[in-house]
């Protein structure tokens, strides 16, 4: 039985990350709400519990690495990095602006970001290189790579899948954000990729599937992944695109959508209500 206080903390953190994302998107500007919000719990679990990272030593050799292969989900990573103190909150206001720190996609100039991603399909291979380097250096650190489900049609991911199992990289865990919607519609309609779990397993990976919004199950899945020896691990996150804002959930328009003032207010109110509910629940624990 996991620590209930920890779970409540991480759930609250996930909501805070969604608030940060919404704040960065703001009113009347396009932003990747859907694929950021679907990752909030996974990011909360990784950045605020699992990973050994320190904002004061962003290049510490022993740190764990997180790569967002689905680079368009950058806002959720920025949201977490900001909460951890990698850069001041004011930077969130300047996201994607000229001379701002936070680029439209992850860039190495941003503290806490480990690689340049955004051109899809490349992050896992970069993670393979990092995992190989850590093994050569006899470090216990781990590499976490977050992929999208639409991204699964990128051939390079499967090259990386083969490389990781050839090299028996048990210090590498990938996450697949299975939110079932990509830029132009439902993955089922745009480009079918059936049996992702079986595909990855047949490439030599240990595969776990988990409710991507259930913090307790996520914690358990990561523990299981860390215990696997001799092969890389994949955690398929069964998620809801746009999770946390009712009208934006499961809606392709919010892959990279815009909130008008009324919708922004409504979205923020929903997130604040969730935050209050979680705080009340934590009191009970």
């Amino acid at each position: 039985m996991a620590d209930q206080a920890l779970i409540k903390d991480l759930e609250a953190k996930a909501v805070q990350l969604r608030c940060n994302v919404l704040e960065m998107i703001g009113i009347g500007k396009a932003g990747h709400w859907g694929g950021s919000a679907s990752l909030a719990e996974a990011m909360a679990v990784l950045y605020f519990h699992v990973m050994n990272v320190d904002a004061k030593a962003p290049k510490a050799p022993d740190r764990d690495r997180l790569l967002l292969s689905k680079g368009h989900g950058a806002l959720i990573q920025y949201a977490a990095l900001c909460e951890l103190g990698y850069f001041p909150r004011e930077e969130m206001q300047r996201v994607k602006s000229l001379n701002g720190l936070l680029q439209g996609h992850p860039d190495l100039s941003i503290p806490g970001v480990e690689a340049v991603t955004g051109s899809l399909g490349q992050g896992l291979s970069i993670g393979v290189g990092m995992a190989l380097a850590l093994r050569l250096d006899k470090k216990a650190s781990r590499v976490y790579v977050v992929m999208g489900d639409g991204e699964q049609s990128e051939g390079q991911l499967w090259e990386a899948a083969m490389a990781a199992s050839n090299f028996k990289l048990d210090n590498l865990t990938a996450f697949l954000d299975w939110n079932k919607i990509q830029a132009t519609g439902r993955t089922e309609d745009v480009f079918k990729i059936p049996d992702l779990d079986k595909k990855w397993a047949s490439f030599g990976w240990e595969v776990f599937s988990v409710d991507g919004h259930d913090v307790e199950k996520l914690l358990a899945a990561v523990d299981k992944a860390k215990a696997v020896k001799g092969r890389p691990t994949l955690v398929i996150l069964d998620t809801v695109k746009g999770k946390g804002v009712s009208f934006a959930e499961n809606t392709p328009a919010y892959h990279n959508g815009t909130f008008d003032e009324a919708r922004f207010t409504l979205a923020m109110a929903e997130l604040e209500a969730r935050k209050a509910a979680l705080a009340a629940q934590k009191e009970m624990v």
Partner: protein
Amino acid sequence: MEKKSLRTAYGEALVEMGKTNPDIVVLEADLGKSTMSCLFKDAYPERYFEMGIAEQSMASTAAGLALSGKVPFYSTFAVFAFGRAYDQIRCGIAIPNANVKICGSSCGFSDFGDGKTHQSIEDANVMRMIPHMIVLNPCDAVETRKMMRAMAAYDGPVYIRINRNDLPVYTAEEGDYEIGRMSRIVAGADLVIFATGSMVWKSVEAAELLKAEGISAEVVNVSTLKPLAKEEILKYVAGKKAIVTAEEATKLGGLGSAIAELLIGEIALPFERVGVDDAFGTSAHSYAELLETYGLTERHIAAAAKKALKR
């Protein structure tokens, strides 16, 4: 003149550097016996990564290794090293200035038999266009070995273009290679021939042909294609009556274009380019046949020189 293998020099340099620098790692895509990275595999198997025939994965994996403090060299045929992995180089390596060394082997027409799919006339030209990328094109085995040390010492992405065939040695064993520095191979007074890679050899022979006709041609080895310093070029152009460039690559965006761009507004001299017109290669039984067919011999260079001088 004695000919030596540039790709053997590449492999031997990797082994030599690997001895003292434990951070050097090598990646290959099933062509290690051609690129000669196999020598490193024999010496340091734990630092050699066979990526399978997967150049995109190889380029990005090299990026990951570099971002973790390693000094990765990856090699395969030039056409695949740059072309199959262009976006991986651009995003994963060049944008973050990752310390990855890319070896495009069997460049130009040097893989004569395999034909147009395997011959690379545009690799260095395309790599020049990517910000942060250093582009090197050695003219012989000695220069290759020295360049490898300079590449390892430089912190950032470098592309090196390696000829498959043994080439005569024109550069000196002594001294270190300095990225961006040109070198005079033949001194001359009437015109200057800026040559790169295999065309240094052909330009030296052209200078001999011209000498027999009373024309004094200087041959300058431009083995760093990027960065290209205007001051260096102006130094060699000074006092000459014409300029010729020679490269085993498409004329579009290559050495000739680059020098012409730098000289715009600086100097007006008759200028001729020897290179490949906008065309793919083809299979042949020998390298020499292709150099002849595509206008890349000493005769073509000498003719270009005379044409320029007549203007």
